[in-house]
């Protein structure tokens, strides 16, 4: 029996979050023009500066073309056929507490394993849940407020903390940054906002759960996290979507700002609907994530487990401006069936003695195409900067692909940049060894793949590491054949 045939027998449990919630929503008709941008801004009762900012982005976006350099093949997106705003219908302005949230929404999140009832949260994770375009609930508000932490939906932040938004919004990812970020800046609907005041260690994990429900809508959320001097926060983001046979666009922007001695740990478990085995449907995940270590000794750490989406296009990066600041990127990306992942990171070293670590684990199975694309840029000011990059690919079967594009630009001779790369397969020897110990083929494959990803999983918060392992197992079902 060949390796392929051996691995083939895995039973298909398939995508488990593919249901649709039957809920009445208010959706803008498809199409995009200045009027739509103004309407979104009006629905959100935004201050002038924000409306102007959106319009500026929109006008700039009109002059941009979609990037074509990624190693992916995508159906062209008709931006006029997408609806840019969809919200579950509510009588009042928005739920003030969980009791006002539509029970069907709460049920949806229960099904997804994200119970919003505070009592049910044993782990003590505060959750902001975003359903299509709007945030439906933020838990644990009181406890966080006591610590001085601001954790709320972006819409709430617009009302309550406009000065913070004006100061930080677009300061890491400028509205002109790239095609998708620019589009997001024009039409973003909701997302999360976090502010950790000076010296505060956030008392619990913060987390946002994104859910696309409505058909023919795009999701454009925006997350902004500001960690003031000496503060500390760990943030987790999870995502799912129903199974639909058209492609849906998700173009998010995440901005992180870490001041002196501050630390932000941002973990993502991305499980958007990947499309079916033949590549029909699935989410186009075109996301811009960037953190700036603005202060000395600050640290930003990205950990991502990317198992979903038809196409993933994201490069969470760090701008290491502050002296001695540290940027980290730990990634597991899986491309099974017809999925395409083009992901990696950008580490921009500006300050002296800045350090960055990149660990990327790419798994390709089925006809999946997995690309690591990473930029390490060391400016002339970055005396003594260091980077270590490790980039490993695991192939399952012979119809998938793994590609590596490391870009390195070093302008300071004192910098040290190291790069290690490997490509391997699950060997028949390893598989048979496990079988001979009585372990089933499915468990053996999962064990070996998890072993491969270990150095990334150990960076995840405990409860999510377990979730990530399970997710990987499900996503690998019927992996090769």
């Amino acid at each position: 029996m060949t390796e392929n045939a051996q691995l083939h027998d895995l039973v298909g449990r398939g995508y488990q979050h593919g249901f649709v919630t039957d809920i009445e929503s208010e959706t803008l008709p498809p199409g995009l023009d200045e009027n739509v941008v103004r309407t979104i801004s009006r629905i959100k009762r935004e201050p002038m500066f924000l409306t102007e900012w959106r319009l500026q982005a929109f006008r700039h976006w009109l002059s941009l073309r979609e990037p074509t350099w990624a190693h992916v093949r995508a159906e062209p997106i008709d931006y006029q056929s997408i609806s840019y705003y969809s919200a579950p219908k509510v009588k009042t302005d928005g739920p003030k507490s969980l009791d006002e949230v539509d029970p069907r929404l709460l049920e949806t999140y229960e099904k997804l394993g994200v119970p919003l009832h505070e009592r049910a949260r044993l782990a003590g994770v505060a959750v902001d849940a975003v359903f299509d375009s709007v945030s439906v609930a933020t838990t644990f508000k009181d406890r966080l407020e006591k610590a001085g932490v601001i954790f709320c939906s972006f819409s709430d932040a617009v009302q309550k903390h406009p000065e913070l938004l004006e100061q930080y919004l677009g300061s890491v990812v400028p509205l002109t940054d790239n095609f998708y970020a620019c589009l997001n800046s024009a039409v973003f609907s909701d997302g999360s906002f976090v502010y950790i005041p000076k010296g505060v260690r956030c008392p619990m994990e913060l987390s946002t759960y994104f859910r696309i429900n409505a058909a023919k809508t795009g999701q454009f959320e925006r997350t902004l996290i500001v960690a003031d001097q000496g503060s500390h926060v760990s943030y987790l983001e999870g995502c799912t979507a129903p199974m639909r046979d058209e492609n849906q666009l998700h173009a998010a922007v995440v901005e992180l700002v870490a001041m002196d001695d501050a630390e932000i740990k941002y973990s993502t478990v991305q499980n958007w609907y990947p499309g079916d085995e033949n590549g029909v449907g699935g989410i186009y995940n075109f996301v811009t994530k960037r953190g700036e270590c603005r202060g000395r000794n600050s640290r930003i750490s990205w950990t991502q487990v990317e198992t979903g989406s038809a196409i993933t296009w994201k490069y969470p990066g760090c701008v290491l401006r502050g002296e001695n600041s540290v940027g980290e990127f730990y990634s597991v990306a899986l491309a099974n069936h017809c999925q395409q992942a083009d992901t990696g990171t950008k580490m921009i070293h500006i300050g002296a003695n800045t350090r960055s670590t990149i660990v990327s684990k790419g798994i390709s199975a089925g006809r999946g195409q997995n690309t690591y694309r990473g930029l390490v840029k060391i400016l002339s000011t970055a005396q003594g900067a260091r980077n270590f990059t490790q980039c490993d690919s695991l192939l399952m079967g012979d119809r998938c692909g793994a590609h590596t594009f490391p870009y390195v630009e070093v302008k300071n001779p004192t910098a040290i940049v190291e790069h290690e790369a490997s490509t391997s397969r699950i060997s028949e020897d390893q598989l048979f060894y496990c079988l001979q110990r009585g372990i089933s083929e499915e468990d053996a494959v999962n064990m070996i793949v998890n072993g491969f990803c270990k150095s990334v999983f150990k960076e995840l918060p405990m409860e999510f590491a377990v979730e990530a392992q399970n997710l990987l197992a499900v996503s690998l079902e019927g992996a090769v054949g």
Partner: protein
Amino acid sequence: MTEIQAMLSIKDLRTTVGSRKVLDGLSLQVSAGEVHAIMGPNGSGKSTLAFTLAGRPGYDVTGGSVSYCGEDLLSLEPEARAQRGLFLGFQYPVEIPGVNNVYLLKAALNAARKQRGLPEVDALEFLMLVREKMKIMQMDESFLSRGVNEGFSGGEKKRNEILQMLVLEPSLAVLDEADSGLDIDALKVVANGVNALRAPDRAIVLVTHYQRLLDYIKPDRVHVLACGKIIRSGGPELARELEARGYDWLLIEAA
């Protein structure tokens, strides 16, 4: 007197690897409580026999039969054979990076327990069991948390195989060159481990090239595998004779 069925009964076994006929009419009986040694020149098919018994893909059985504990062994999947107490000690144990040694061991034990309708082993009990067996194998606790065979020396890998065997307590252990690459002290440790498993309800098949191992583990029977079959069987004295005379005389006799 009724005839007692041997634990392992191989009849006229034929195995093809790639395009090569390696086993060509091999027969062998091993009863519970016995230790059998299999010797033979390089490339004669000793590992092929071990892999065929364990059900390795690519080792195609073209004829013959194997019964194990009254079951048709060849009809079982490799993991089912293992769960029923067939253990193969590999000549070249493979490394599985990132997979915790003790994690694999626990999964293996639980798979066998599940097959027997037993609940999963208690975590604490398991740890105590492993510690006890590690003492026999004189292995440091640090091996528990390392990846499976990851960066182990040749001798350490062999010890790890025997450790796994002791924890899993198989009914039939086929040990493929458990002694190769071991220093003198390690050889004794491995032999001790194997002897610790000996019991009236278990059988052990040792593949080896040297008499030394058999000084420590006394076999009941010694067989010579050549030309795809067992060409000679005898008691422990056969191994000593081979040590002194080599295989040529047997091969000439067989031809």
